């Protein structure tokens, strides 16, 4: 009997190896990345590439990566993604919202390839979504800004009025208001994720209009650099921009994708990949705050306390009640705080923001 068991086990293992391991165990896992910008943007795409390299380091010989940068979000995106699928890549990360439909189309055509789409909301059996809870970092930044600002005005440089950006603005202001209820914000839309010249111009305009702390939801270090020049403070975005603002940068909410990428690649290697929706924050290490610099110790302590509170779940940036700028109380679908769906589709400003969302 025992002998047969062993033979049976061997047969099952052989079959399993054939099914799952056949393609994977013998060769390296090819992982593809599609970036919307240049990896040199020192912001969004750069951080994804950092994550890619971290994954390579962690998994060594088991993976081989390819990346395509500067892929426009139009018809070319679908082809780029499909090219990766056709050339043996079994796991493909598409790192911008604008790739959503293209990723879905290709995912439907290649059921044996796994797709991961960042910051989107469409999924399939072989397509996951992932994003980071940047708003957690923003809340902390808001608190720091309120403490450090003498004029009580925060300057915010943003790209496009999509929910992620709006929720981040709101989170920042909620954090600021928790320290200084009268904190004000001035917002400038530069209509691009990445335009250093315009970001610099916007930074200067905001400073001229009274802001003495700058933050941004765009990708280049231009604003940090202007802050350094003008002697005020700023927050880095997506990556640590301290190099460009050694005296200006207070902190940065950086994206760290390395662990997530490693985890997902390992899942493919183990044959355990499933379609999921991941939204990591401070707790899972997807959002990492750059070291707190250029601030007095008490502010630093406050920031670290808040960070710990958010991490442990005792503090939620969008805890109810939340009042929108028209004075109405927002329905609280998550019990004590807004639920992820509300945050992901956020289309209103909270009270205290003296501005209108463009296009509304």
């Amino acid at each position: 009997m025992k002998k047969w068991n062993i033979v049976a086990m061997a047969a099952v293992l052989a079959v399993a190896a054939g099914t799952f391991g056949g393609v994977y165990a013998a060769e390296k896992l090819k992982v593809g990345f599609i970036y919307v910008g240049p990896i040199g943007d020192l912001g969004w795409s750069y951080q994804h590439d950092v994550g890619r390299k971290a994954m390579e380091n962690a998994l060594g010989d088991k993976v081989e990566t390819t990346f395509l940068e500067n892929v426009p979000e139009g018809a070319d995106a679908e082809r780029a993604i499909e090219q990766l699928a056709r050339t043996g890549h079994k796991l493909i990360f598409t790192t911008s919202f604008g790739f959503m439909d293209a990723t879905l189309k290709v995912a439907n055509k290649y059921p044996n390839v796994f797709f991961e789409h960042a910051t989107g909301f469409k999924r399939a059996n072989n397509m996951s979504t992932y994003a980071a809870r940047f708003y957690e970092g923003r809340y902390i930044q808001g608190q720091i800004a309120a403490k450090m600002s003498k004029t009580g005005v925060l300057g915010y440089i943003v790209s496009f009025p999509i929910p992620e950006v709006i929720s981040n603005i709101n989170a920042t202001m909620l954090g600021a208001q928790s320290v200084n209820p009268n904190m004000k914000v001035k917002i400038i839309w530069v209509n691009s994720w990445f335009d250093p010249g315009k970001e610099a111009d916007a930074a200067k305009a905001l400073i001229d209009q009274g802001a003495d702390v700058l933050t941004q939801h765009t990708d280049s270090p231009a604003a940090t650099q202007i802050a350094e020049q003008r002697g005020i403070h700023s927050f880095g975005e997506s990556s640590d921009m301290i190099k460009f603002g050694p005296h200006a940068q207070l902190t940065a909410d950086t994206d760290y994708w390395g662990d997530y990428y490693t985890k997902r690649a390992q899942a493919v290697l183990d044959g355990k990949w499933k379609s999921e929706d991941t939204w990591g924050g401070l707790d899972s290490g997807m959002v990492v705050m750059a070291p707190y610099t250029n601030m007095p110790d008490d502010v630093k302590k406050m920031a670290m306390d808040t960070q710990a509170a958010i991490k442990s779940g005792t503090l939620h940036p969008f805890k109810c009640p939340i009042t929108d700028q028209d004075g109405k109380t927002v329905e609280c679908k998550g019990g004590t705080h807004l639920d992820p769906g509300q945050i992901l589709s956020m289309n209103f400003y909270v009270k205290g923001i003296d501005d209108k969302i463009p296009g509304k």
Partner: protein
Amino acid sequence: MQLVLERRAERSTVIAVASPLIAVALTVVTFAVLFAIMGKNPIDALSVYFIEPLTDAFTLQEIAVKATPLVMIAVGLSLCYIANVWNIGAEGQFLVGAVCGSWLAVRTNGTDAGYWVLPVMLLLGALGGALYGLIPAICRVYFGASEILTSLMLVYVANLGMDYMVRGPWRDPQGLNFPTTAAFDPVASVPTLFEGAGRLHAGSVIALIIVMLVTVLLGRTIMGFEIRLVGAAPKAARFSGFSANRLVLFTFAVSGALAGLAGIIEVAGPIGHLDPGVASGYGFTAIIVAFLGRLNPVGILIAGLFLALTFIGGEGAQISMKVPLDLTKVFQGILLFYVLACDSLIVYRIRLVRTVRKAIPAHA
């Protein structure tokens, strides 16, 4: 001793035929050298760029998909350029066409509209592009303003205008506030030719038809003759009674219409919805295609396919050889330089001559 350029008595037919081949050969050689400098194997690189995309049904279809808007726009532009009218605003006309056609798609989205939707969209696209193209034409004909600059400025205006529409009034209500229209309904989409097996779509057929129509227009109609005459010998054209102004308006309208048509086809076909990413420079690349094709519809067809090949090859090179995409741009620029240079030799020849010293005039 110096090199001078001398006009040939007659256009050299030998060079006329050989020039594109020489240009391509020169480019390939330059490229091999560039690759070698970058430390990549030139043979591999050239194969990835030019041969591999041709070996596979998927990439072949992609070449056609990429070439379709380029060829359509370039054919329209060639009409202008032959008549010495410089339409640089095809990108703007492309976008306006996309927007106009998309209007209908957005309006009828979700309703149970019939098959009339797509043809009307295409018509609207062409009409929108034509009207937008007429603006620089009118500025030139009635005000004498340079059409190069007016058409160029209008590109930026069109870009910003589309951006506004997509982020505001036309934003997909289900799209969580993201700047994109809802996906177009099937009746509002350009059908693919091989269901599920590739992206080749009806737009490519339309492009081929346009190539044939314009070939006939240029070669066999009075209008075509007028266009060619106005470009080659404006004075003779005036004496013959052809109105140059009418031709300016006509060529701009037609090229605007074709660019607009290309725009709506691209949006209703491969892309499937309108979003700011639609503006990817086709209008400018088409200018290169027009020149590469030597302003001849069939030549443009070939040039468009060739350029599309380099795009696809460039992406393949990014994947398999980690070669940056910038190299493709460098390649296209160099190719155009060589083509233009070789073409010049059809009309001129280079001679080495002794510098003639000017006689010193005798002064009184």
